[in-house]
């Protein structure tokens, strides 16, 4: 870490994290001394940009249940599958060398269920058989009976026979890949900043139950003057996992993918190559601050796709007054 951060915040007042409560399904944390925009970025990345594995293709051989094929496929997609340490175990299909999908980029699950009794039969996630040797992608089962999510119900003589291909993905593409069911987010539980106003019949205080984070902050004093300079400073989050990943891993992956995102944009700005060799970036002003403007053309007045090079623009003009609507040919 360079000095800029300390200069900016002072070494004693960097961000702080406190874990209030945690188990294998959820974690409550307080993130303080940081800005709303960063806390929100952290929340959004946990919701939408952490890769997990989920069923993405379903080949249905037989489905005589009352649930239509597409409905059934959708339900299968939403079943949480074990995604712990997925980055070490699976690659994205689009990055894989195979033509369609293979063991490096997918996990195959099969379902074979037929009801033979007069009692209706329930098909559960535990009935999904994972391909032998799979390192991840097992259906998540947390109930004491060990059944997992209900997939369908079958009456006597009905049958479901199918093969599923589970792939790695992120929730930005489809919500089934989200590692969380929700990330609760709150600040200023006593509404000292007056960012909200409570609807009430007679007395807002009596009618609104206090937030579960209310005792983490001092309640407003009687007759306290409103501080119009105050900004939110502490953010309370409750990360609720769907079970595919432990909350602890979700939060760590969140930071990791936020950093990854920054690196990607830096690479895009630097023209892909600069980053690795000089091990970071020079601050503006230091040694003239002349980046190799690879991505943007290089040199003075960086060329842009929007023109700049001899004043050409996609809107014409500069091409010797020849516009796409031309002076030659038609005119």
């Amino acid at each position: 870490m360079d000095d800029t951060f300390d200069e900016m915040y002072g070494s004693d007042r960097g961000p702080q994290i406190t874990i209030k409560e945690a188990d294998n399904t959820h974690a409550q944390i307080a993130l303080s001394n940081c800005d709303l925009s960063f806390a929100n970025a952290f929340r959004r990345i946990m919701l939408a940009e952490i890769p997990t594995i989920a069923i993405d293709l379903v080949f249905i051989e037989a489905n005589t249940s009352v649930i239509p094929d597409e409905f059934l496929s959708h339900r299968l997609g939403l079943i949480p599958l074990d995604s712990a340490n997925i980055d070490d175990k699976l690659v994205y299909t689009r990055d894989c060398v195979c033509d369609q999908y293979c063991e490096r980029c997918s996990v195959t699950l099969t379902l074979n269920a037929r009801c033979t009794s007069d009692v209706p039969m329930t098909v559960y996630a535990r009935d999904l058989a994972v391909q032998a040797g799979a390192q991840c992608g097992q259906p998540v089962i947390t109930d004491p009976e060990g059944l997992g999510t209900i997939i369908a119900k079958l009456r006597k003589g009905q049958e479901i026979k199918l093969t599923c291909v589970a792939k790695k993905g992120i929730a930005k593409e489809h919500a089934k890949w989200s590692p969380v069911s929700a990330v609760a987010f709150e600040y200023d539980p006593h509404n000292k900043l007056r960012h909200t106003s409570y609807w009430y019949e007679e007395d807002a205080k009596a009618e609104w139950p206090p937030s579960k984070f209310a005792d983490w902050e001092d309640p407003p004093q009687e007759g306290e003057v409103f501080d119009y300079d105050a900004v939110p400073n502490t953010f309370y989050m409750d990360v609720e996992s769907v079970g595919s990943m432990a909350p602890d891993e979700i939060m760590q992956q969140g930071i990791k993918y936020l950093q990854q995102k920054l690196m990607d944009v830096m690479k895009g700005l630097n023209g892909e190559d600069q980053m690795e060799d000089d091990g970071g970036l020079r601050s503006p002003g230091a040694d003239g601050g002349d980046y190799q403007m690879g991505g943007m053309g290089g040199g003075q007045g960086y060329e842009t796709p929007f023109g700049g090079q001899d004043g050409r623009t996609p809107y014409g003009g500069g091409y010797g007054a020849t516009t796409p609507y031309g002076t030659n040919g038609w005119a």
Partner: protein
Amino acid sequence: MSFGDEFLDNLLPPQEEEGKLRVRVLPGEEPGSASFQIDDEDHTLGNALRYMIMKNPHVEFCGYSIPHPSESVMNIRIQIYPEYEEETRPVDALMKGLDDLRDLCDVVEEKFVAARDSFNEEQGV
């Protein structure tokens, strides 16, 4: 089986054209001010980056927008105080913003690991 995949391919957005830059300078660039367009970014990066760039004392203004919800691009505008125009170009401020945000992530990760370890210890895990 290939039927399924062709069908899916048709649903996917067209591949990015070869050589198209992910970060672009928008028209109207001047020595102390520029707007950039970044592909495939949204409020997740936009607001945090905007905040970080505004923390730079050379920066007079920074704002971001998502021009249209169905186009996955983010625009970010940076203006430098005239007296710092010589030493800091808008690109430099953008780079510094990204770099500072990365430092912030490093600190948060460090703090998170420490908090988790002490929590686990308290719980006797």
